[in-house]
């Protein structure tokens, strides 16, 4: 095994082009487990910790450019207002020690269906900035996940940053596990209200071969909220609408039975989380509306 230590992003891209089998390591919270257990013996290990700008973020007008290695701890501490869904999801990642090292770039690189960041990214709307010596491109998050632990990266590409849309409404994240820490999600659900476009977006984790959106459920809910005038009136979401939304989210799943849970449990739990996160976010939207109307 060779240990590559690029001192800059350009050096990292050059090294990846020269050694496409090189495994990038940043927080190491996935890669080192595989090496410690002899599941993986990469020819080259490429340390990205020395590429400083991977650990930085910028808050722009429309979105946040989040460096691939920004640790979850920093997201929780600094981006709660801009990226509430991702901040909530970050807080459920493993333990403080892991959150101090791991970042969204690693979640995307590993592309496990159980990665905690994925439902939040899907719900908020995001693009993954990847680059190689051939050039840079942005992959919409919906097109990034290609299969179980497979993503849209070419062999010579590295993940540089994620551009996540700033929240324009309430967002929530929910995760099922046996305790509040050190849990790989049995399943997880992210939901974001986008009052500006009057749309709702979802993200489901650990209940299909890849992280997915519940598109039929989103379309149903968008239409129901629009037709019922809910965005303007701020009425509570009708229980029958919430139930139908939950059922459609459950139906979007394509889960498996495994040691963490059965497929039918996962489907059921996703439905419950969908209904709850819709209620939480909608209540928060109504509360914010009442405040602004009260002030006017």
């Amino acid at each position: 095994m060779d240990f590559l230590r690029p001192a800059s992003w350009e050096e990292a891209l050059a090294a990846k082009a020269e050694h496409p089998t090189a495994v990038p390591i940043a927080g190491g919270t996935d890669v080192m487990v595989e090496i410690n257990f002899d599941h993986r013996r990469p020819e080259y290990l490429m340390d990205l910790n020395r590429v400083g700008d991977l650990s930085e973020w910028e808050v722009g007008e429309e979105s946040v450019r989040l460096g691939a290695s920004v640790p979850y701890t920093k997201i929780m501490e600094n981006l709660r207002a801009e990226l509430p869904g991702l901040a909530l999801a970050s807080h459920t990642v493993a333990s403080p020690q892991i959150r101090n090292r791991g970042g969204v770039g690693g979640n995307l690189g590993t592309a496990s269906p159980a990665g905690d960041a994925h439902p939040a990214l899907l719900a908020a709307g995001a693009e993954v900035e990847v680059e190689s010596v051939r050039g840079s491109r942005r992959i919409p998050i919906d097109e990034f996940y290609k299969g179980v632990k497979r993503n849209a990266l070419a062999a010579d590409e590295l993940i540089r940053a994620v551009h996540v849309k700033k929240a324009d409404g309430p967002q929530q994240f929910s995760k099922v596990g046996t305790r509040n820490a050190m849990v790989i999600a049995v399943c997880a659900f992210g939901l974001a209200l986008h009052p500006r476009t009057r749309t709702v977006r979802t993200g489901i984790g650990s209940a299909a071969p890849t992280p997915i959106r519940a598109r039929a459920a989103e379309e149903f809910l968008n239409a129901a909220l629009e037709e019922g005038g809910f965005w303007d009136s701020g009425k509570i979401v009708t229980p029958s609408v919430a139930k139908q939304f939950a059922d459609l989210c459950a139906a979007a799943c394509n889960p498996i039975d495994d040691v963490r849970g059965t497929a039918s449990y996962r489907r059921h739990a996703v439905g419950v989380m969908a209904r709850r996160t819709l209620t939480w976010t909608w209540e928060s939207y109504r509360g914010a509306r009442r405040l602004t109307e009260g002030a006017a």
Partner: protein
Amino acid sequence: MRVHFTVNGRPQEADDVWEGESLLYVLRERLGLPGSKNACEQGECGSCTVRLDGVPVCSCLVAAGQVEGREVVTVEGLADFAKQRAEGGCASGACGTSLQNAQEWQAQGTDSQTGEGTELAPIQQAFIDAGAVQCGFCTPGLLVAADEMLERNPNPADADIREALSGNLCRCTGYEKIMDAVRLAAARQSQGV
């Protein structure tokens, strides 16, 4: 490969390091510092917790090559680290813990009954006083994690303590004595004891 880094305030180098080796392995097997414990090797248990540039991390998940030029504090250096922090920095310029002292560090002092002769970090003393140590395997990681939390948050609520220690598993105590120990250390810290 060779790795140069600072351990407990002193520059060290480790030779013949395999490229896939963890920081934990380097500390235990190359530098003779077995205080950080090797249990799960997958970041689940926290018994290998050390500070890397001040931040608590699982040393089993840090590749050795990643620590080149960086600073690590292990449980063996915790007493000196805490002392230096209390004194507001290193006045003499010769602080930290030498490798030999770290290798020979033990909680028992020259008098095995009273512990006299060994200086403990306040969190270490609190663990002893509260009876928070049983088999002791999880203790080093808990000490490093708890000490860092008290540095950040001198007056933690129980929920803060639980959260800060949520990455450290103990299979003996049921955590109650550990909670007591951290509360004790926090109380002593706020009273300047």
